[in-house]
């Protein structure tokens, strides 16, 4: 993806804060707005980054808030408490693409509207997962939700880095298969 970049950036938070704040936001304001994304995300100018600044997604076409909401939406569709946000960010970073931006901005706007219909300021402003899931149910039959969900099936679960968190061991030919590595080692039956 030429238009996006995702990697662990120890300095990303600092970089985001140190930028000349093109949208007229001070670092304090950023943090304050970030708080609206109550989970783990802080929105910076052109960046969506982890609260602990362990990683960042640079957004070039989407609004940072949109990307942050999208990452939250991805987590709420496939919530795994042991998976860090960065895996969800990787799974949806491809939407930061001029060809998709309109669809995504409209989809997230509709999601926020659905949230408002249930009395929340925004989707990300709903603090309980159960509330956000109810909001997602409202849009679940729509094209936007279906696109994001089906994209996640491979975008999330085909990231080799997450496999060990599920115990899945992946490729095994180079290790000689499991004939001597526990194909029949079950001990609790």
């Amino acid at each position, binding site marked *: 993806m030429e238009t996006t970049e995702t990697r662990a950036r120890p300095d990303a938070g600092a970089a985001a804060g140190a930028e000349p704040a093109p949208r007229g936001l001070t670092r304090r304001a950023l943090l304050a707005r970030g708080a609206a994304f109550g989970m783990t995300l802080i929105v910076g100018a052109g960046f969506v980054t982890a609260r602990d600044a362990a990683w960042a997604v640079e957004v070039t076409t989407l609004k940072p808030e949109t990307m942050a909401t999208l990452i939250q939406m991805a987590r*709420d*569709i*496939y*919530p*795994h408490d*042991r998976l860090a946000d960065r895996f969800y960010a990787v799974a949806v970073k491809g939407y930061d693409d001029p060809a998709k931006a309109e669809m995504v901005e409209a989809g997230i706007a509709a999601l926020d509207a659905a949230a408002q219909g249930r009395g929340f300021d925004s989707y990300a402003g709903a603090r309980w*997962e159960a509330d956000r*899931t109810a909001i*997602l149910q409202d849009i*679940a039959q729509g094209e936007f939700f279906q696109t994001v*969900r089906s994209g996640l*099936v*491979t975008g*999330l*679960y*085909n990231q080799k880095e997450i*496999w060990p968190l*599920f*115990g*899945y*061991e*992946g*490729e*095994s*030919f*180079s290790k*000689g*298969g*499991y*004939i001597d*590595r*526990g*194909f*029949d*080692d*079950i001990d*609790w*039956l």
Partner: protein
Amino acid sequence: MANPARFDLADDSVVVVVGTGAGGGVVANELAQKGVKVVALEAGGRYLPEDYINDEWDSFGQLAWTDTRTTSGDWRVARDFRNLPAWIVKAVGGTSIHWAGASLRFQPHEWKGRTTYGAVPGANLLDWPVDAEEMAPWYDKAEAKLGVTRTGDRPGLPGSNNYKVFEKGALATGCKEVHTGRMAVNSVEYDGRQACQQTGFCFQGCKWGAKWSSAYTDIPRGEATGNLEVRDRCHVMRVEHDDKGKVTGVVYKDKDGAEQRQKARIVCVAGNSIESPRLLLNSASPMFPDGLANSSGQVGRNYMRHTTGSVYGIFEKPVRMWRGTTMAGIIQDEARHDPSRGFVGGYELETLSLGLPFMAAFMDPGGWGRPFTSALDSYENMAGMWVVGEDMPQETNRVTINAEVKDDHGLPVADVHYTDHPNDVAMREHAYAKGIAIYQAVGATRTMPTPPYPSTHNLGTNRMSEHARDGVVNRHGQSHDIANLFVSDGSQFTTGAAENPTLTIVALAIRQADHIAAEMAKGNL
């Protein structure tokens, strides 16, 4: 390949085989072994064990048939996988690269579905024009070719973790016929191929060659005779005929996209049960306006895919089902015909394992939220089994040409229409209950009756029949209408039986090659 044959496009003495999977690969080799000159045309490329990839999606991208197809009917696949009705390989070796290797003979009564089950409303049941006794010697040959475990003097495979859970549950619920299967996977070195290393990517192509596939057995052996030329990346577009109604050859797109015409004495169609009827239908001509071999109107009809479904169980402790063979064992107690269960025909239960990426895609397509992810969180503690049962042939379940959608060659694509018969639904419900009980007997804390995947067993769309009015081909797979046109794949199936189909496809292919060679020698073909 000491001696790769090269035949001229104008050589009309060759047998052309379309497709090189379980049926086509075997018929091509068997003919070549008998001295018959064969040109095998395969739409896909050539991949060997060193090329196979231990990664579900990468392997799918390498091997699967992803040319456009469309779907219709009530089956859930049409909703969840609109353009992927079936999971089929496009490569030299066909779906025998992906298959798990379960190799079972039909039960004798299953050759006579109409007689055994009677008239089932809505079903288009018919007896096969062959029977168990006649097929027995061909099964012997097929089992020897594939090296099927627990047949001949070949020992069974050892039981994996997934199998041990399955076996314990089976025995606890009173099942008697449970074992590690009859598998075309070597338990000991056999036929120059080594024993299974329990790698666990059987669906992605066996990198050890322990599992039989025509890709690295029949195909190279046929080529070594000097009588077989395999042309890969050659997509057959239509079969041509003369004004006497005999087929004369095929037109295909070669590797470079150029159109070629290969003359032929005989054409054997073996493109799998979706592409074979599509090819016959796309070959319509003024003389055969409804497509070749279609005077009965049955080409494309009676599409069967087995009554399938999976049950996954989650346990308190790890199972690690992905370690070892993908199909590690079988329960055969329910394979019998016993209408007191509320349905005709029977089903097998076979262990199955999917890796995490495929589990996410197939466990509950369209599912999301905690009910979905909490199951995947327990992936390590899952055991899995698959249901394979006899589905009813229905005239309206069919492969047709979708004239509105074209493939890369400009040819109309196949539409695959399927709706469960009530018998299929009753059988699946019974199998789910059985599978759930089996896992609960071993202490499952959660069980998941999982819907059928895109079809891996595709059958019946050019079925065998005694009479020309009832089907497309006769007892030898020879079309009723055109003497030098044969069907050599799973589309010949008159009924599906409860068993995985490939052993029967191979047995029929060996038998057909024998018949063709004999008829050629007699000058009848």
